[in-house]
């Protein structure tokens, strides 16, 4: 056995620190620019607070690296249950901010419990898969995994935080994928999401997709049951989505969903499409090299709502241009691929599931967040991992990576508790 620090993956830590650093730069620009004195005093302290949270996260990273593998395995279920209890506590005693009742107050510290729940859920699911008897993957086990993710998701929905709940729903296919569900079934699960997206963007495309997907499934499996499931899921989704957009939903709900397809349209630009119009103006006007640090007119003028939290990417896009955006994308690519590779090297379902869970959480956040900022997705208020202002999210995302690194560092110990 080599020294522990030889097994520590410094590359991941470097990527993590760089991303957090970019986030701090972006937040600094929103709080210390030329118009800083015109900001609300609460907003002006964002940078300092984020700095404190980053220090806390660093401490958590170190502590997580010191903890043994056994600790994670033993405490996985208790932590999961603990976060479920916290989610219930939020529903009872939580504080409402921006319409979502997601925060618990510990003295001066506000904690967004749904962020912590991501860590708890990833741990819980990983442990569930880890203690499973080999080759016992069946539909029942899959349903158990789904239930474990759905429980916190539903509690978060009750908090009126649909965006975060959506992250949990999207985590389901990823968890099933790594716990060994057949790819065909997985595809049938994912198809409705694509069909619904196409139904919003371009309905003929959605219908074509449903037909082609069903045909593809038949050609691939020659299995009538799977083929009819594929047809039912994809076609049904197109039908339901179309009906919802024309008959079922209220006009304001439809506007919120449809506005991203053309946020600048006259009927949207001052209401449902406002965030995206401003965000696109910021990112698009950045061009190749950006307007320069603290030089972005959109950023400094505070035009993009939530520009230090959910729309932090607009700051990077405007002030650092396409190269800045590309740099962040490459950092994410490096971190995600690296963590996936670390996970696959662990050769133990617990480690694999933790790594893939962390990567899954990151990937879903990145896709939805940047997709929202660039208007290929509707506005769904979730933060960009490691970059957005917000202590709970930074802490949770750091913790996820820290656990992966900690397990990877001691991956030889894992097999002791293996199959």
């Amino acid at each position, binding site marked *: 056995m080599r020294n522990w620090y030889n097994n520590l993956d410094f590359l991941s830590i470097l990527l993590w620190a760089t991303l957090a650093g970019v986030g701090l730069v972006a937040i600094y620009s929103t709080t210390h620019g030329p118009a800083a004195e*015109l900001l609300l005093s609460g907003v002006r302290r964002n940078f300092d607070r984020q700095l404190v949270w980053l220090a806390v996260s660093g401490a958590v990273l170190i502590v997580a690296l010191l903890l043994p593998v056994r600790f994670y395995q033993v405490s996985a279920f208790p932590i999961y249950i603990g976060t479920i209890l916290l989610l219930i506590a939020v529903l009872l005693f939580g504080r409402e901010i921006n319409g979502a009742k997601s925060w618990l107050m510990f003295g001066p510290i506000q904690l967004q419990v749904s962020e912590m729940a991501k860590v708890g859920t990833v741990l819980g699911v990983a442990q569930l898969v880890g203690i499973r008897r080999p080759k016992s993957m069946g539909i029942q086990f899959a349903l158990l995994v789904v239930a474990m993710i759905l429980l916190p998701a539903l509690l978060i929905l009750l908090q009126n935080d649909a965006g975060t709940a959506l992250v949990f729903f999207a985590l389901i296919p990823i968890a099933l994928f790594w716990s060994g569900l057949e790819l065909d079934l997985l595809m049938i699960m994912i198809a409705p999401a694509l069909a619904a997206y196409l139904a919003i963007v371009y309905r003929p495309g959605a219908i074509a997709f449903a037909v082609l997907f069903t045909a593809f499934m038949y050609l691939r499996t020659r299995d009538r049951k799977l083929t009819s499931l594929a047809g039912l899921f994809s076609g049904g989704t197109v039908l339901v989505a179309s009906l919802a957009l024309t008959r079922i939903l209220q006009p304001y709900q439809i506007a919120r969903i449809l506005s991203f397809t053309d946020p600048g349209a006259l009927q949207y630009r001052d209401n449902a499409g406002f965030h995206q119009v401003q965000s696109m103006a910021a990112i698009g006007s950045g061009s190749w090299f950006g307007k320069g640090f603290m030089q972005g007119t959109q950023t400094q003028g505070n035009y993009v709502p939530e520009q230090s939290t959910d729309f932090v990417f607009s700051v990077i896009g405007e002030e650092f241009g396409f190269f800045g*955006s590309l740099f962040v994308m490459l950092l994410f690519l490096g971190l995600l691929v690296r963590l996936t590779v670390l996970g696959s090297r662990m050769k133990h379902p617990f480690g694999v599931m933790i790594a893939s869970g962390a990567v899954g959480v990151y990937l879903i956040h990145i896709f939805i967040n940047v997709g929202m900022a660039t208007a290929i997705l509707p506005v769904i208020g979730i933060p960009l991992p490691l970059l957005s202002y917000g202590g709970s999210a930074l802490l949770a995302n750091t913790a996820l990576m820290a656990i992966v690194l900690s397990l990877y560092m001691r991956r030889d110990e894992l097999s002791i508790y293996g199959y």
Partner: protein
Amino acid sequence: MEENRTRTRIFVILICAVLGILTLRLGKIQILDTSTYTGESRNNAIRERRILPARGAFYDRNGVLMVDNELAYTVLVTPRYFDEANISFLATLLNLPDSLVANRYQEARNWNSFRPSWIERGVSFDVLSRVMENHHLLPGVSYEVDQKRLYMTSARAAHALGFIRQISRSDLKTRRAEGYRPGDLIGQTGLERNYERRIRGSLGSEFNLVNSRGQVIESYLNEAEDIAPISGFNLELTLDSEVQALAESLFVNKRGAVVALEPSTGEIITFLSAPDYDLETFTRAVSPEAWRFLRESEEKPLFNRASMSMLPPGSTFKPFIALLALESGVITPSSTVTCPGYHPIGQGRIFKCMHVHGTIAVQQAIRESCNTFFFEMMRRIDVNTFSRFANRFGFGERSEVDIGEQDAGLIPDSAYFNRVNPGGWTVGTPMNLGIGQGDMGVTPLQLARYIAALGNGGVLPTPHLLRRAYHPDTGEIVYPDIPEPVNLDLNPRFMEIVRNALREVVEETSPWLQIPNVSSAGKTGTVQNSRGDDDAVYVLFAPFDNPRIAIAVMVENAGFGSMSAGPIASFLAEKYLTGTISPTRNWLFQQVLDTASGPLPSGDETSTRDASP
């Protein structure tokens, strides 16, 4: 574990695909479509503030500053960024009632939520400083430097100078391309309107970065794109502010008009329409009561009598008829007409004379103002010859000058009489024209021009108010496009007879018209009208040999021309020529001051009295 490796590979591909899609999307927005979004962000954040140039100042003919500017500040609100809860705070800072600010805020919101609209104009620097100190608490509040006209002399010259007011909706439509925006001030009357383009100057711009609440963050590109305003041209006028002021004081309690010209050039020395109004009124928001009074008063203060009122010239037209008769050959200087106190046509009932003049020739007829003689002239002269000759003197036409508001007047010809007399007309019909009565009308401006031409010996000048415009910064000088005086090619012998007759009017018939130590020539007129007492008219030029001033004075409803209009004209000429009023005439001066225009009729009363000297 082969299975695990495949899944890892699929998962890495998924990561690359997701990040790849996002990167492609970013490339499209940031590289392909960047110009669209750059435009959008510019529109958002870069706010142009207009800097008003200094409006041109006005100087009188002696270089006396008449109209200048004073800085004033306008406080603006952009409703989109303004918090309604701040209304009473803003009202307190501005010392205005809450309800007024609330009303104006509502109006601004109805007009355009995204554009700054004014809340209060004419704000002093102190008050503005108080507002701007609290700028950070008042998002959506901004200010503009504005100008207010400042009138420097006791002469008001309201109708000549004109006033500026907020641009009207209809003007805004046609002149938007020139850079006018709602609330901008624009010349509405007089010189302010006529030379608007010259004196306005060109707007400057200052570009600032503003935040989403409309608050200025910093200047854009360090002012590299800012444009400095260019001042307007200053105007050097032909008015004499002292003579103008004298005319205004002499017209206290009177209605009427004065136009005084320099005969050789046509430069207007005095241009008065009474009653007038204080231009100062229009430098502030005009109260509805003041505006209603100005618009609806029976005395019509806004009406420019000097160039808009059309009245028969009465006996002041007799020199013209005399010239016409001599020039057209219906009489010679020695031809005589016998006056039995009336003209025989109409059995003497219609065409009366004031006296029995006996047998008289033309020079005496002018001096004595014999109606019979001039009735007879018009009996002999074709009405179209009359109208052509009148047109040569500028009657019946507008003149090409910088006085925008003009009435052409009325000079009848045969076509006119055919039209208004469907039952046919006789030789008697145009005869009234001989004494400047009947179906004709001239403006005081036209009368002044005509008497100036007589003073010049038959050279008709073009009246104008602007001598030249010069730019305060560049020194560039622009002269107005004034036509040269027109020589009417009249027989000098005939002209001499008429001029001598006019001198005799002053020297032999009326001591009230004489100017101490200055020889002058003039003609009175008393004009019947439908408004009440007769209007008094007097035309004059002086000095006789080389006239430097020609004046037409009209006083409404003031009786004989020699008793009010005449002395007024003589005082103005005296003031202009000698710089002072001789103390020997103080009694007359006092008497003129005490004379008032007769009351306006209550409506049904119409005068039918006959014409007279």
